[in-house]
């Protein structure tokens, strides 16, 4: 089996006395797709923020291709090959679609997909000259994704990209993510929509209150008592 691209080893994060993440560990290899699941406030986005360099972890270590990256600056982590989208899409609204992607392309190390290929993959062809602020929610999310993949990340975190999209847009998105996975990327999908998750990932890591409560195949997670209790409440879980 290939070496893990990303290793998260016992990562904890405290904000003052509040424990947002408690000794979370996982690994992901090339071409794998992992779902990161949990109710609101379970620490999913905090975990992404810690891995991508927004916050340093309070405890634990993070390795990317064998190099320790925890505590590094976000732009260095992005250039090294880890990137993410945002729960609320954050394209640069005053910039055009082309400028949004060009900005990321200008910081890419080495070769990779061209502007046209990225536009084609994310179904944004024909919108290059539009200001990102004029795009609809689905298009803005795809642009966020286009910005993230422009740096050719080998590990890509997708943070609730499906929220607020209609079924057609969700299918388009699932198709895009599958293409990326086949291209050898490791993908971590943070999502509440189980139907969407089923189309993209096989394995999931379930968090609750910052702790791992389940790790394994998605179909097994749906039958796990702890997972049911967390998502559906005590009366149904028992």
């Amino acid at each position, binding site marked *: 089996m290939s070496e893990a691209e990303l290793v998260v080893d016992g990562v904890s994060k405290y904000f003052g006395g509040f424990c947002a993440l408690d000794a979370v560990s996982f690994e992901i290899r090339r071409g794998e797709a992992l779902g990161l699941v949990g109710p609101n406030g379970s620490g999913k986005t905090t975990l992404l923020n810690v891995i991508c360099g927004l916050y340093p972890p309070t405890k634990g270590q993070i390795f990317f291709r064998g190099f320790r990256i925890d505590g590094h600056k976000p732009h260095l982590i*992005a250039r090294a090959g880890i990137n993410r989208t945002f729960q609320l899409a954050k394209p*640069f609204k005053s910039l055009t679609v082309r400028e949004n992607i060009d*900005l*990321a392309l200008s910081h890419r190390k080495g070769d990779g997909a061209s502007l046209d290929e990225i536009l084609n993959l994310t179904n944004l062809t024909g919108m290059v000259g539009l200001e990102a602020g004029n795009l609809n929610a689905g298009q803005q999310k795809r642009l966020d994704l286009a910005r993230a993949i422009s740096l050719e990340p080998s590990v890509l975190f997708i943070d609730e990209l499906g929220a607020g999209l209609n079924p057609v847009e969700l299918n388009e998105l699932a198709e895009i993510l599958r293409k990326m996975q086949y291209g050898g990327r490791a993908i971590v999908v943070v999502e509440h929509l189980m139907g969407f998750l089923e189309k993209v990932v096989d394995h999931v890591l379930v968090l609750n209150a910052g702790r791992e409560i389940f790790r394994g195949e998605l179909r097994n997670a749906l039958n796990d008592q702890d997972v049911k209790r967390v998502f559906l409440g005590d009366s149904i879980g028992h």
Partner: protein
Amino acid sequence: MAKVPPRRLVSRFTRMVIDRSISWDLVGIVVPIAAFGLAPKFYSNELLLTYMMVYIVMAQGINISYGFTGYLPFGYVGFFGAGAYAGSLAVLDLHVPAILGVLIGGVGGLLVGSLLLPLFRLRGAYFAIGSLAAANALADIISNPSLTSITNGPYGINLASAYSSGEIYVSAMVLVGLSLAVVFYLRHSQFGLSLRAIKEDEYSASMAGVNVVKQRSIAWLMAATMAGMAGSIFGWATTVFYPSAVFDTSISVISIVFALFGGTGSLWGPTFGAIVLYSAYTAVGISNPQYFQLIYGVIIIALILFAPKGIVGVAKTTRARIFTRGKQVV
């Protein structure tokens, strides 16, 4: 540096001319410089024109700091005052030519800007207040009587021996050209694109690979250097000045109002704002000085209420309305 074949240079220039925003910005550099070159033939008060050019540079400096990176420095006058003192003291104590003094003024602004880089740990109103406090502290240090042997303390500076109206005027024109060229570069380069991304969202910009701290610091130091040179020319033109004149907070406020009135993030906006409002202020200040503060206040309120993106923003919106009338917008 790689040599660019002449044919490719021509094609690059042709592309720039064809690109409407680039050619419009090129006109925005040429027209003000040509206008100030011709202005003394029609208007004899060169000192007033020099001050106007100084304020164009200050407004463009605010444009770089606020329009491109989103940091509004109410203490921007600190660089202006530091430049005025650095340039003047170099002329008086080191006996350098006054034109070289302008460059030393820029270095003075740059040094103070470097010292204030930790201010970027603050954001929004805290940054604005922090920069204002730093400028006031610098003014207090320079005007301290115990530093009279170095800065002449509260007794000010007399540059009468270096006065040359022609040299001052040309220096101001060159500085305006330089500031416009810097803003032109920011509007049409990857560096400028990075700054605009930083203004929108720093973390998102860093996820696009942008080194936020480095790029923001470079922009800040550019703005500080420009203000230092502007302050140096102001001191040279004013001849006799005191710390209170070159560290006056109203210089920051007026520069900010000029930049916002015209529209930040653009090349034309701050120039337009400085020319129109400085002319209006001067006219009102001479004819009806008792209404000066009133009119000043009304303009700021009107700006916030009706044109938050400045005159350039209003022009853009109007143009978009005219050209998209009857067409479907995305």
